[in-house]
């Protein structure tokens, strides 16, 4: 196993663990805002680590750029969705 494979393995496993932790938080945390917090950690950092881990395996530069674009788009949509849900939660229960 070369150095790049080891790097990929470490990053992807770390990302998967973050996803697992995020899911656990989503299921176990008591209120909307902390559940959102757990979810965005998984979305941002977990996906970011998996993309980072897959980058060295890309044959071409374009493949890597596309992967990073996917991560950025996922970031944008996750941030928006989180804001929207948090906004509704705040309107329903002021002070939460």
């Amino acid at each position, binding site marked *: 196993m070369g150095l790049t494979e080891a790097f990929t393995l470490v990053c992807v496993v770390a990302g998967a663990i973050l996803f697992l932790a995020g899911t656990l938080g989503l299921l176990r945390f008591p209120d909307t805002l902390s559940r959102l917090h757990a979810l965005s950690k998984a979305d941002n950092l977990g996906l970011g680590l998996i993309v980072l881990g897959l980058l060295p395996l890309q044959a071409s530069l374009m493949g890597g750029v596309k992967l990073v674009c996917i991560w950025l*788009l996922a970031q*944008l*949509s996750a*941030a*928006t969705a989180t*804001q*929207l849900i948090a*906004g509704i939660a705040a309107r329903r229960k002021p002070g939460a």
Partner: protein
Amino acid sequence: MSLVFDIALVAGLIALALHVVVTRDGRGAILGFIAFGLLLGIGWARLASVDVALTEAAIGGGLTGMLLLRAHAHLGREIAPEAMARGEPRRWLAPAIASGLVALALGAVVLAFPRPAPSLAPQAVAALETTGLGNPVTAVLLAYRAIDTLLEKIVLILALVGVWSLSRDAAWGGASQLRPAVIPEPLVFLARVLPPFGVLIAVYQVWVGADLPGGTFQAGTILAAMALLVMLAGLRPAPPTQARALRAMLAGGPALFVLVGFLGVAVAQGFLSYPEAIAKPLIVGIEAALTLSIAGTLALLVAGPPDKAPAS
């Protein structure tokens, strides 16, 4: 190792489907269905059908989910709560046994598939050169079985005519109301930032679909999603359904397809056969026109029947 992943995926799919069917929470069922569509997209990728995976994730998960969520919200406003929550006991044993038998019979059929499996892949690859394409799925959709795709476009238009004709008489020709009463700021931001990227990705999908996974349906769905996002955020109103330009765009794709089809009668071997020298430019041209009309049709199908009277 990959078999373990497949088993976990299949178990997840079946568990989600069961949840969607038996849960009492209507909105929960729809959200479960969206998750089911996305998971099924991974399943299609595992079956080495990336074109189908893209379509399933975009249409099965995304657009159908939005359609159902909108319908759920609409029904919630129309229906009195007491009419919704009638908890009469349902008979479930006989349907469960019958459905189980159907599933078992189909499972037996799956296990009894002939070996070696029949395949049209060799023929599809052999004729690929005459079309100038590199993606055999696109070749099937737009060359070998182009008549299917043409008829499917017509089915889409007919479905849209059906949806429009369900509007009230006064609203015929008017626009659908997509704009919510309160528009959250982040949604407006997303609707300003995302569409340029969405259009870029859609153009890329059409272009790359000739040789790699991608194509008109996936691109059309992305464009439809962008149009819906812009209308939902209130940046642009939904177009009135009597607008000439809109109707020309919707009919343009199938019309061009039919035109090229008849051109085939004149200069090639028959209806929908392309002259070999210009097969690829013709196919890409049809794809571009189809993408626009698919995008319009899908977005308007989600928007639903017009409910505002036309301006004039």
